[in-house]
């Protein structure tokens, strides 16, 4: 993959001393930082551009050859219709609406006047500047496109105005635009964009174009309805799984349950007797059944007798993985991510070990790919965060040149990082190669969870020295875990071997701590156990550890967790303002709470945004956790769509709370034990708290949002549970057994249950 060439003002800094000021100036963090800080040079810069590129003519020609296509994002037809091509993919985060708002704001069209298109795979035209590839992830979309999409709209508007002014023989500066029409108020003449499209298309690209002053924004900053809502509410949006191609058959697949295991052989006698079964296909480590419909394929798969070679991981268990990880944390060689000052010789030492589990993504839309391979070409229909990676993989598998791989991206029924991987697409191409008709390969939910590419497990040893006032004079964090980046984009790893994502939000904390050392010990999982990106990436892991530990420090110092943080934020007014706002809104100091009810604070600066969350939770005597309230304060810089901002924080929080309460992938006999929503639980509406968001307005460039809520959720919950029970949770998911008040409480729940055990009407 091509990596971004650092901008002139981005100076890679020494790996041991990250320039925090420059980082915050860039408003970057997480995945993007991991890429940018790789400090590559000499690679081709594939960043998107607001003006026509060499590849634009062919792209526009393939996209209906509109008379006006000034860049890769805007197509205007002679009838005035406007199509906008979306460089990122829509997986719920609302980026199609946000990108349209940025383009339309400068183009001078209404949101009701546009249609959107999924971008085709094309690195030259649609590469995310912050990731150096056509990738949607790392909460980069708004940050990376904030300038260029507005500029793209302004370029188009400038050309349309120029075309009108030439026709009218007037000064372009005397013309105005609104709702797809250029007007010359002096002579009361108007022309629609459609009538100007051909003439504008013949003009040269303008030089510098003027962007609106933010005070003149008519779209940006407003709470607007998503452009994809209407179709989604009517059930007519086409997700990848909804694709129907003439002649298509449906397949479902089962891979060897153990990591890296192989298929030895099958007996398909019973399968072939099932009506509707068409074929049984074998791969190295998997078997698939093709049917006239999914049910035939699924029945056929269930009827197969399969012999697996369970391979080297056949005895693998979570306990063994944990043990090896803990050993490495002590015996391994750390890479220093950041070191400031020296560890003082005196002070009160506080130490803790935190452990985080592997996690599956469980997107609502199970993984699926539709593929049609012929001698001439390979056509793919899939919702993916990495379209060009899928094309490259398909070319490798089919032996066809990349130009012969046609990928049609689709709406994604959730991504959360799972669709940053191309494994399911590769598998589908391998299967499609064996047949002459198009096949849609659908993973069952069981397959989706058992063959997730999981978030890594972590083992973190964190410590601090407190002075006589209880303030930390030193903080140390040794993070041990696997690397996603090292597999996914090894060229983006630091020169010293550091995966910057693993220390994000641990190497830089909002607090004033004079001395610190943050280091990472790489511990790869056994071959076959692949780890991947999961919503919130590094910050989701580190904020749980750091913000839980901050609470431990406050408790050790005998201080209120709010006051303790306040004292350490005196040099960080933006984050202090958030802490104060959240505390005020929840009534931190005024409202008395009943027994076993507690509030927990977490504060963080992930993805170029700043957030403070306070969760109020009740823990029943039996150890059940009831979420009562979540109050978030947010500073995300300029907000594009304030309704989407709220939705992303609400949804992201619930995603993080869901994982903290319920989620953990465990391994037994070399295979993932969980398989569906009954044993890989997800938060439901009856468990959902009130969620309030309070936003501080800012004129800073936009921060990321898709992962902010997720990253800050778990520590606020764990701190609330501590406040309610006095039990410090140093591992996730929440261990209810540890929260039981006493043994009588468990007896009481049985005595209190309704006689007759009435059945749940929801079942």
């Amino acid at each position, binding site marked *: 993959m091509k990596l971004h060439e650092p901008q002139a003002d981005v100076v890679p800094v020494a790996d041991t001393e990250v320039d925090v000021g420059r980082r915050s100036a860039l408003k970057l963090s997480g995945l993007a930082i991991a890429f940018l800080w790789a400090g590559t040079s000499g690679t081709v810069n594939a960043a998107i551009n607001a003006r026509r590129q060499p590849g634009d003519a062919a792209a526009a020609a393939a996209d209906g050859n509109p008379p006006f296509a000034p860049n890769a994002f805007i197509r205007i037809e002679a009838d005035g219709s406007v199509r906008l091509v979306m460089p990122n993919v829509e997986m719920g985060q609302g980026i199609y609406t946000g990108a349209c708002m940025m383009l339309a704001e400068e183009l001078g069209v209404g949101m009701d006047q546009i249609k959107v298109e999924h971008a085709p795979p094309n690195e030259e035209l649609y590469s995310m500047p912050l990731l150096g590839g056509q990738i949607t992830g790392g909460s980069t979309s708004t940050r990376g496109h904030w300038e260029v999409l507005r500029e793209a709209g302004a370029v188009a508007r400038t050309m349309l105005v120029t075309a009108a002014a030439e026709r009218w023989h007037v000064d372009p500066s005397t013309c105005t635009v609104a709702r797809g029409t250029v007007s010359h108020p002096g002579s009361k003449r108007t022309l629609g964009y459609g009538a100007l499209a051909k003439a504008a298309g013949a003009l040269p690209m303008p030089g510098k174009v003027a962007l609106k002053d933010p005070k003149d924004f008519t779209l940006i900053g407003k709470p607007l309805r998503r452009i994809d809502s209407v179709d989604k*509410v009517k059930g007519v949006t086409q997700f990848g799984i909804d694709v129907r191609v003439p002649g298509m058959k449906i397949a479902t697949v089962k891979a060897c349950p153990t990591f890296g295991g192989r298929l030895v052989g099958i007996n398909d006698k019973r399968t072939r007797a099932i009506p509707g079964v068409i074929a049984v296909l074998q791969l190295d480590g998997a078997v698939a059944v093709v049917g006239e419909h999914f049910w035939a394929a699924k029945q056929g798969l269930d009827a197969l007798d399969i012999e697996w070679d369970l391979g080297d991981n056949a005895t693998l268990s979570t306990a063994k993985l944990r043990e090896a990880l803990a050993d490495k944390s002590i015996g391994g060689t750390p890479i220093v991510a950041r070191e400031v000052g020296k560890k003082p010789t005196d002070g009160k030492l506080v130490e803790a070990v935190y452990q985080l589990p592997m996690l599956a993504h469980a997107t609502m839309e199970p993984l699926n790919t539709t593929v049609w391979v012929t001698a001439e070409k390979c056509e793919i229909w899939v919702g993916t965060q990495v379209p060009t990676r899928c094309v490259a993989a398909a070319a490798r598998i089919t032996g066809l040149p990349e130009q012969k791989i046609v990928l049609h991206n689709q709406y994604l029924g959730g991504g959360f990082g799972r669709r940053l991987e191309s494994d399911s697409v590769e598998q589908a191409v391998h299967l499609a190669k064996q047949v002459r008709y198009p096949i849609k390969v659908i993973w069952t939910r069981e397959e989706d969870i058992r063959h997730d590419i999981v978030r890594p497990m972590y083992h973190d040893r964190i410590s601090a020295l407190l002075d006589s006032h209880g303030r930390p004079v030193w903080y140390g964090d040794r993070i041990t875990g696997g690397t996603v980046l090292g597999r996914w984009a090894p060229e983006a790893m630091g020169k010293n071997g550091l995966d910057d994502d693993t220390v994000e939000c641990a190497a830089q904390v909002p607090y004033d701590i004079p001395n610190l050392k943050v280091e990472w010990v790489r511990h790869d999982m056994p071959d076959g156990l692949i780890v991947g990106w999961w919503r919130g990436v590094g910050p989701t892991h580190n904020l749980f550890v750091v913000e839980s530990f901050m609470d431990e420090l406050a408790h050790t110092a005998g201080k209120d967790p709010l006051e303790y943080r306040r004292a350490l934020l005196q040099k960080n007014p933006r984050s202090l303002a958030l802490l104060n706002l959240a505390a005020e809104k929840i009534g931190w100091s005024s409202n008395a709470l009943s027994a076993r009810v507690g509030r927990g604070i977490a504060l963080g600066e992930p993805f170029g945004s700043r957030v403070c969350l306070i969760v109020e939770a009740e823990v029943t005597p039996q150890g059940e956790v009831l979420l009562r309230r979540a109050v978030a304060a947010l500073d995300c810089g300029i907000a594009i769509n304030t309704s989407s901002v709220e939705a992303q924080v609400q949804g992201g929080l619930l995603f993080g709370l*869901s994982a903290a309460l319920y989620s953990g992938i465990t391994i037994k006999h070399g295979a993932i034990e969980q398989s569906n929503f009954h044993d890989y639980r997800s938060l439901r509406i009856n468990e959902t708290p009130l969620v309030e968001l309070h936003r501080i307005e800012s004129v800073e460039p936009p921060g990321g949002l898709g992962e902010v809520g997720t990253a800050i959720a778990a520590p606020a919950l764990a701190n609330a549970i501590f406040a309610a029970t006095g039990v410090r949770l140093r591992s996730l998911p929440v261990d209810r057994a540890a929260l039981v008040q006493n043994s009588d409480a468990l007896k009481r729940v049985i005595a209190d249950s309704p006689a007759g055990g009435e059945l749940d009407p929801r079942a």
Partner: protein
Amino acid sequence: MYVLNVNGERRSVDVPADMPLLWVLRDIVGLTGTKFGCGVAQCGACTVHLDGRAVRSCVLPISAIGDKPVTTIEAVGKSASGQKVQQAWLDIDVVQCGYCQSGQIMSAAALLARTSNPSDAEIDAAMSGNICRCGTYVRIRAAIKQAAGGKAEVLQTIAPTGSAGAP
């Protein structure tokens, strides 16, 4: 051969008796608005109306349906409760990825058809079988209340409260 009464049309389908309605709708009839999420009635993405009641079509064999009318997301807007729910979903902009929303809307429409003004507990009981991984539950609850009461629910809690201090 079964004759399915779906969205007011009669459709003959030649499928096995144990084939779940979900796959008949998606792969035979071609109505893809009803979604596959789990296959075991855990997530509710496949919810449709059978004789007006919300059911999980992923575990409902075609042979168990008989001549009872089936309504899917594609036609729920023709009923009063379905129309109100879809409009409230738009007014409050509930959807994110949208994949579970067909099922959410079907469950909500069935709830409102029999309970015109549901309490929070009734909303919980009717909707807790529908999982949304994007976490749109806060807006789902508000939208159901809005659809029921016809009164705009103040959902937009984003409240600018001053300017950020200098960094």
